[in-house]
Structure formats: C-alpha cells, structure tokens
C-alpha cells in the first residue's frame, strides 16, 4: 500500500486491474485504491509478472503493507507464490521476492537517526519507514542477525502486524468503489476529503513559517501572443493562459531551485525535476493538487493537453498514485473565480506555492504612457526555513521576465 499523500496512513483496495500470471510494466496501473482524497490508480514500480495478489477488494490496509508479489528476473510465478505464502507465517524466512507495489521511493535519509534504535544496523530509509509505521527496529533486526535492516524488512514486519487483525474483509462500502463518469463526490467522501485538507493545512500552518510576496505582472504581450496563436487553430488545440503561467513558473524555479522540492526531517531536498501541482477545485467542494510532471520541459501544446487531462481525471477520480505525491511546487489559479489576489497555504512537504488571480484590464504604465493593459497578480507563499524573501523576490522577477517573452515558453 503506497502512501498517496503526506498524511495518508491507510488505504482500501477497491479493485485489481491485473491477475496472477499477468506481465506488468513499470508505471502500469495495477489497482485502484480508495483514500481520503478519493479513488486513486496505483502504478507498479517495477516490471515483473504478478505472482500473488495479497490484498482483497474492499480490504483496508496500512501504508506499507504488501498488496501483491511479483516474480522478477529468473523467478517463476509458482516459486514466488510459494515463497511468499510462507511470509504470512509468524516467523518468515527472508524471501527473494520484493513487495511488488511499493510506496514511493523513500526520501533522503534524515541527518540524525532517532537515538533509541541507533544501535540497530539499518539503512536510514528503513529507520524512517519504521518510525512512520510504528515498527520497532530491534524486533525486525532479531530476525536477521548480522544483517542490516532494509526498508523491505520493515515493511514486511508492518504487513504481518496488520495481516491478522484485518484479515476479515470489511463489509461492502455504501458507495461503489469504482467511480463512473464525471460525477459529484459522494457526501461521505466529501467529509473525508475535508478532513484530509484540514489535516494537511493545519500541519502546514503549524510547521511551515510562511512568508508571502506579491507582484503585478503585465500580461499584454502574453495574451496578445496567445490570441494570435489560438486564432489559427481549432478549439481543441487552443492553449489557455493558465497553461502559459504553469510553464513560466516551472521555468522560473530553475533560477531559484530552493523553491522546488521538499522539506523533510530538517533538510531541504531539491526536486528531481519540476513537477507542478495544479490545484483543482472539485465539484461539490474539496480540492486536490495533482502533479503535472516535468512541466518545465513540455512543449506548451503538450503541457496544455496534459493539464486539461489532469484536471478532468482529478474530477473523475482517475488520478495516478505518482500524481498525488510527486508535486514539487504547487500553483493555485483562482482567476476564474474572480479574485484578484490569492495568498496560498503551502502543501507539505513542499516549500512553495504560487498563486494567480484574475486577469484584469487596468491602467498600467508602459514606457512613459498610461495605457489600458491586462495584468495579473502573482503571489508566492514560501517556506522561510528553506528560502528568504530575497530569493522569493528573485523568483517573481524571473516569472515576470519569462511572461514578457511568451514565444520562448512555447
């Protein structure tokens, strides 16, 4: 059971999209999991052949519990199925097979491991995982004398711990798990989502010392350039200003990389790539900010297509697990709702959020003349533990400069 958000502790398997014997590729959607933020499609992290499905539909599992086992390399499905059967026993031998659907790659190691377990040999990632899952490292280590505890060992221990109490599948949920076409989120899910948002935002305001900056950016050039571009193409191929803004933000963080990444265990971890979280308001309430991967390198037309697809899938609860966890910076755009300025709350463990308001026509000074021009308020909320106002200001200046040369963002 992968973690599909900073505060997720459990997830419910809704359905499998694969069966034993199926070959799966890295990145393939293998199952749907229900979380507080709705149903999510979970991708496989490694290629292989499905050997055994462990989780049953409608079973609620703790994060880290195995969902399935894969046969990899020279392993046969039968061997792995047999080997992993033993893993359900109280004292398993170390099996060759790895949990197939593993959580997102562990973040960089904490600089100071927790003292109580310090005498146990374990990888930093395993320590962190053990802490998250509430597993005593010492008990895991006892099973493998002379070996360092790996993250897989910890997860195995956690899985066994949860296997017993949750073996009885929970009764069928009131709402069907697999969502149909675009529809409003059911009321009980809305309550859960409200709860998830409350928890993440309270954590943000408790832990992150925000600083806020804002500036007005002239959009006359960008808007005119976009109009010319869009005039030549059909409606399906037009690009919205929101997509241009995303591309500009993704490029601007190249100049201030300390705004793009995560803050974990007292350390800033720069993002590997610029994955822009797009805040999407859901019908009937709630909010989710899935990641648009590598937004800085996508050609604008492709970025627009993916952004539209991401928003639609967010509303239909068809997001992928990686999209829920990978965002390295978030953009919220309330322009359609009429507000001019938004000072957002950072989504932990990210360290910055960029806000755009409505594009308005205003008197603006261009050269020495006052002209009617389209402008937008851009804001930055950033984590003061990682960056300072000077750097934030530099980011907004870069954003402004990039938006004055829209053709370079194509």
């Amino acid at each position: 059971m992968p973690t599909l958000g900073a505060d997720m502790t459990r997830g419910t398997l809704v359905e499998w999209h694969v069966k034993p014997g199926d070959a799966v590729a890295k990145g393939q959607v293998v199952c749907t999991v229900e979380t507080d933020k709705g149903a999510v499609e979970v991708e496989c992290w490694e290629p292989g052949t499905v050997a055994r499905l462990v989780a049953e539909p409608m079973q609620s599992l703790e994060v880290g519990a195995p969902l399935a086992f894969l046969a990899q390399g020279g392993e046969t499905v039968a061997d792995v199925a047999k080997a992993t059967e033993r893993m359900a026993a109280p004292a398993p031998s170390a099996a060759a097979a790895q949990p197939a659907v593993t959580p997102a790659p562990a973040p960089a190691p904490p600089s100071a491991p927790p003292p109580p377990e310090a005498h146990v040999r374990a990888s930093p990632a395993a320590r962190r995982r053990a802490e998250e899952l509430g597993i005593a490292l010492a008990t895991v280590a006892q099973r493998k004398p002379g070996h360092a505890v790996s993250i897989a060992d910890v997860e195995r221990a956690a899985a066994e711990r949860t296997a017993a109490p949750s073996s009885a599948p929970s009764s069928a949920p009131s709402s069907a798990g697999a969502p149909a076409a675009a529809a409003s989120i059911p009321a009980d899910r809305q309550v859960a989502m409200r709860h998830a948002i409350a928890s993440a935002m309270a954590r943000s305001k408790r832990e992150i010392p925000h600083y806020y900056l804002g500036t007005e950016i002239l959009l006359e050039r960008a808007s005119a350039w976009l109009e010319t571009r869009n005039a030549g193409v059909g409606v399906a191929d037009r690009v919205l200003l929101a997509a241009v803004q995303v591309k500009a933000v993704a490029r601007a963080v190249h100049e201030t990389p300390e705004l793009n990444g995560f803050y974990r265990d007292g350390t800033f971890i720069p993002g590997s790539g610029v994955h822009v979280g797009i805040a999407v308001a859901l019908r009937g309430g709630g909010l989710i900010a899935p990641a648009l991967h590598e937004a800085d390198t996508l050609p604008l037309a492709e970025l627009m297509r993916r952004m539209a697809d991401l928003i639609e899938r967010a509303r239909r609860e068809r997001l992928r697990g990686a999209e829920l966890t990978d965002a390295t910076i978030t953009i919220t755009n309330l322009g359609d709702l009429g507000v001019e300025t938004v000072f957002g709350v950072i989504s932990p463990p990210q360290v910055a959020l960029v806000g755009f308001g409505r594009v308005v026509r205003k008197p603006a000074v261009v050269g020495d003349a006052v002209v009617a021009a389209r402008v937008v308020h851009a804001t930055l909320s950033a984590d003061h533990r990682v960056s300072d106002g000077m750097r934030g200001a530099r980011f907004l200046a870069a954003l402004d400069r990039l938006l004055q040369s829209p053709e370079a963002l194509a």
Partner: protein
Amino acid sequence: MPTREEVRQAVFDAIRSVAPETDTATLRGDRPLREQVEIDSFDFMRMLVFLHERLGVDVPEGAYGQLATVEATVDYLLGRLTAG
C-alpha cells in the same frame, strides 16, 4: 439544419458533460451561465469541443464574449449554422 430546440439541447448536453450535477431545467437562459454553474476556463473549452463535435461549429476565441448565457449561445450557434 437543427432547430432552435435542438441547438439548445446540445448546449444543455455540453453543460452537463462538464458539470453533470446541473439541473438544466432550472437554468435561467437569460442570466450569465457562470453565475449559475461552476465552470472554469478548462470546462468552458471542453464545452466548446463538445459543441464542435455535435454541431460542427468551431467558435473562435474572439467570439467567447458572445456566449455568456444559454440563449446568447443558442443565438450565436444558430447564426453560424444559418450562415453555413
């Protein structure tokens, strides 16, 4: 050549394609659509793609301002369909 009622139905279907919770029977055709239904610029674009597929009318960006209400949208689409 579709009738006015058929064009209006296409507009309703387009609205429901992006905002399925909408009860189109209660929509005020003479009031701005965005005041009655939660539609953002991405939804609006999807509606236009839907209408293009249904009616064959590709609304240029410059005409978006003429589509504020349901009835104005019907007028515009009928005008385009009549013009051939």
